[in-house]
């Protein structure tokens, strides 16, 4: 790449696949690794400040109830209690829609989710909070707060909530019916539609038409570290927050909106984060900790959730009802596709129908389609983003119907998908055209993978395949870099590191400057030390913040060339830089040699970069899975799993593999075990990790990965996001494998042992 070229200009001469990289594609040890294997890394809950108090939250025992009265007097005088907080302490924000990455939120609703005002809308909804000298006293004090509720019947199922006679959650909510606001209040937040071609004509041309209905349960992100926040509200009005978040600036913006104070009054320090998967973008505890600090006389207040609070009150992602109808002709071309998706948003608007409607037919070029999506409130916790939000539910529906069609056509399921695969210039459901995408290459790689041809002997065993699509995201990122006199570079970047991105970002700076990875010392900045950076979500961090690192390299190179020219009394045009060495005529200086001369030759050298790239390029994964079903118990065992994915360019292949393997494991859990189980009054019955049942290492085999690299022309190094798409195919691939093993088609998630047995019994009514 030419020296000094601006990154925006690289698009037409993107990195060639055969380009030899020095750093990209290697597997260095992450710079924060030692702290994390020795237990020294500091996560949010590890914070201890002098005089620190401990906060706890009182939560609604009812799924739907009006708050009639609250008496906090006994709690306030309980020994050790320093502050009690109710919604009266929270300013009432104006209505204002704010984007927080992978979704937007009305500030009024978010405030009401942080602390209920007049109504509790789900079991676990925050009602009041206490700060005390230790966490046990804080919890004891909660029991002394008397709340009088008027219980209202809850509505839990998305289709029931859509009925006109259903109990209303939000009296001021009117349906946005494709841009027209309905007169009557409703639980339906919005209806979106994507449409093109002639659906009727398409179905008339079909040789095979399959129409099926699907339901999926509420599932949680399941990060191991519960939400936590520590706040210190100084008498000068300056608020500092230490917390576990995917994005410090997002926390700053949300707290500013909810507390109605300027962002300049807030400093957010992102601690190490113990997993997020989309669930740690929105705030829960941060505004409460801030107000408790204020009310307790400016003492620092730490709040941590217990895991039952995590499950009952944060995250999850939407339960859904989906109907899919697809027609294909005898050549295996899809002639028409129709989908109806109703997603439960939880108690406040914001179900990921945008993701669902774009993912459902995303991998395929389809001329005639109609997609309807509905965002619906129900009496469950407000949903948050979860890895490819809305995509997994949608792919489960579409990809099992495609399997059924390919079976009816007598066609190999991967061949069928290849005949319909989307190509450059085809359009996403919402009309956005695809650039250079690796869909066909990934499907081809799956078809020629040894796993696909391997024999699978034994009874009750089956193999399934499915594809998954995700849009990916670019977004805003900032970073700065300073050259140290020992020839290293201190890199400060704004992206929280959840899975090794300090490494993948630093590698791009090292590559750009021709330095080695260990010459870069990356760290994550707080909101006062680095420029605005969106959160680590949307598979954007290695893509966008990595791009900022590339820009830093270009900028530093130019400044250092100018310094070398100064030292040599030459014009900068006469100095060349390659692989860590400056040369001009007979003169030569390594990067390190020049770095030692910086102090004595002029001002310090540093660079800053800000980016907002928009050509992130979508991702595709194709998964192959072998299962064995126990016909006695209904338990499904995963025997072998292979995930093939286009990464554009795998910057650190180990962490790309790790993203794929982790996404697969979450997808397997969603497919087989995980679900929120409620009684009919909306009480969550399995709010513990044991009963919610994340996959353990005994549930999974090794997860084989194959990384396909079709460089993204929208990034200087061809990177495309990798984190989200691997969760999309697993439930469909597993359902297709179960069909091969048993001959039954599963239409409900999770495909738990009981549901498998029901399906077997329905197939052979004489068995039970």
């Amino acid at each position, binding site marked *: 790449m030419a020296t000094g070229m601006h990154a925006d200009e690289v698009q037409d001469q993107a990195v060639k696949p055969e380009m030899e990289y020095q750093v990209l594609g290697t*597997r260095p*040890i*992450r710079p*924060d*690794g*030692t702290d*994390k*294997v*020795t*237990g*020294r*890394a*500091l*996560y949010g*809950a*590890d914070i*201890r400040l002098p005089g620190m108090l401990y906060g706890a939250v009182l939560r609604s025992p009812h799924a739907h109830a009006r708050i009639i009265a609250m008496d906090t007097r006994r709690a306030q005088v309980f*020994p*050790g209690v320093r502050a009690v907080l109710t919604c009266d302490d929270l300013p009432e924000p104006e209505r204002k829609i704010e984007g927080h990455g992978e979704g937007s939120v009305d500030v009024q609703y978010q405030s009401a989710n942080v602390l209920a005002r007049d109504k509790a809308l789900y079991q676990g909804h925050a009602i009041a909070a206490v700060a005390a000298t230790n966490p*046990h006293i804080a919890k004891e004090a909660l029991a002394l707060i008397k709340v009088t509720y008027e219980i209202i019947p809850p509505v839990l199922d998305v289709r029931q909530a859509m009925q006109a006679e259903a109990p209303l959650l939000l009296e001021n909510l009117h349906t946005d019916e494709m841009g027209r606001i309905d007169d009557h209040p409703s639980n339906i937040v919005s209806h979106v539609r994507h449409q093109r071609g002639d659906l009727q004509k398409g179905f008339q041309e079909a040789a095979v038409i399959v129409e099926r209905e699907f339901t999926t349960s509420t599932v949680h*992100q*399941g*990060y*191991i*570290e*519960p939400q936590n926040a520590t706040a210190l509200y100084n008498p000068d009005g300056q608020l500092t927050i230490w917390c576990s978040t995917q994005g410090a600036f997002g926390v700053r913006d949300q707290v500013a909106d909810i507390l109605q104070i300027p962002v300049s009054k807030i400093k957010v320090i992102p601690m*190490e*984060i*113990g*997993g*997020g*998967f989309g669930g740690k973008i929105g705030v829960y505890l941060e505004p409460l900790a801030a107000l408790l600090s204020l009310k307790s006389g400016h003492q620092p207040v730490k709040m*941590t959730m*217990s*895991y039952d609070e995590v499950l009952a009150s944060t995250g999850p992602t939407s339960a859904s009802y989906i109907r899919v109808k697809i027609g294909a002709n005898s050549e295996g071309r899809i002639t028409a596709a129709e989908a109806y998706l109703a997603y439960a948003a939880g108690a406040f608007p914001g179900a990921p129908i945008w993701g669902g409607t774009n993912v459902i037919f995303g991998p395929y070029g389809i001329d005639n389609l109609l997609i309807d999506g509905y965002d619906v409130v129900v009496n469950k916790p407000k949903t948050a983003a979860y890895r490819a939000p809305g995509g997994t539910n949608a792919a489960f529906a579409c990809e099992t119907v495609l399997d059924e069609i390919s079976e009816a056509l007598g066609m190999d399921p991967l061949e069928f998908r290849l005949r319909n695969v989307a190509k450059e210039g085809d359009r996403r459901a919402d009309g956005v055209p695809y650039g250079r995408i690796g869909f066909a290459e990934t499907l081809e790689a799956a078809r020629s993978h040894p796993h696909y041809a391997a024999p699978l002997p034994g009874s009750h065993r089956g193999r399934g395949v499915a594809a998954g699509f995700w849009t990916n995201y670019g977004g805003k990122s900032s970073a700065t870099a300073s050259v140290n006199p020992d020839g290293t570079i201190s890199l400060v970047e704004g992206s929280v590191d*959840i*899975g*090794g991105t300090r490494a993948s970002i630093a590698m791009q700076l090292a590559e750009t400057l021709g330095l080695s990875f260990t010459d870069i010392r990356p760290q994550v900045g707080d909101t006062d030390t680095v420029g605005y950076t969106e959160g680590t979500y949307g598979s954007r961090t290695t893509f966008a913040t990595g791009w900022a690192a590339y820009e830093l390299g270009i900028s530093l190179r130019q400044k250092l060339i100018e310094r070398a020219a100064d030292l040599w009394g030459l014009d900068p045009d006469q100095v060349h830089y390659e692989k860590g060495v400056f040369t001009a005529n007979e003169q030569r200086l390594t990067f390190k040699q020049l770095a030692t001369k910086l102090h004595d030759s002029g001002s310090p050298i540093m660079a800053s970069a800000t980016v907002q790239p928009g050509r992130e390029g979508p991702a595709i994964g194709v998964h192959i899975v072998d299962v064995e079903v126990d016909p006695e118990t209904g338990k499904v065992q995963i025997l072998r799993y292979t995930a093939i994915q286009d990464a554009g360019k795998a910057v*650190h292949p*180990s*962490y790309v*593999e*790790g*993203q794929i*393997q*982790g*996404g*697969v*494991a*979450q997808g397997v859990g969603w497919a087989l075990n995980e679900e929120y189980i409620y009684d009919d009054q909306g009480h969550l019955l399995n709010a*513990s*990790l*044991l009963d919610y049942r*994340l996959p*353990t*290492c*005994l549930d*999974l085999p*090794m*997860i084989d990965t194959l990384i396909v690299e079709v460089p993204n022309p929208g990034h200087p190094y061809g990177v495309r996001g990798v984190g989200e798409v691997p969760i999309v195919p697993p439930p469909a691939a597993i359902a297709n494998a179960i069909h091969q093993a048993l001959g039954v088609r599963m239409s409900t998630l999770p495909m738990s042992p009981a549901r498998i047995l029901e399906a077997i019994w329905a197939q052979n009514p004489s068995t039970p």
Partner: protein
Amino acid sequence: MAIKTLVETRLNGEAIEFLCEPRQSLLEVLREVLGLTGAKEGCNNGNCGACNVILDGVLVNSCLVLAVEVQGKNLLTIEGIGGTGGLHPLQEEFLKHAALQCGICTPGFIVSSYALLQQNPHPTEIEVRRWLAGNLCRCTGYDKIVRAVLAAASRIGNVNDMKQLISMGG
């Protein structure tokens, strides 16, 4: 204010004492009283293994042990693994294999794996998976963790076998 109890114990090889309330778990005392935050609180009910420590040679969830129970015992936490001699082979292999993403479960996995290798220096893959089924990781899908433990076992096992051969005069 609850009455506190004086507890004397050995922590990572050193004799220590602390005061705690009877209701405080070992995890709470490690983190909040002794300032050792390597043991993490995930579930606080024995489901996730992020707080695992070794008590008199036995792997336990420190959230399920009352702090007063460690009187007169020998306690090993993540802070006692590696330490002055540099990283333990398990820690090195976790890094080499990229067996951590967010890292919150990592101390628990390393403590559990350490306990495994103490009693079974040559585990098979399925033995590793059975032993570690009490530790939850949401990021990795366990693949790289299992590989890291097997690689560390092979390194430690080879060293031990060599020592044994030498002591046998082999």
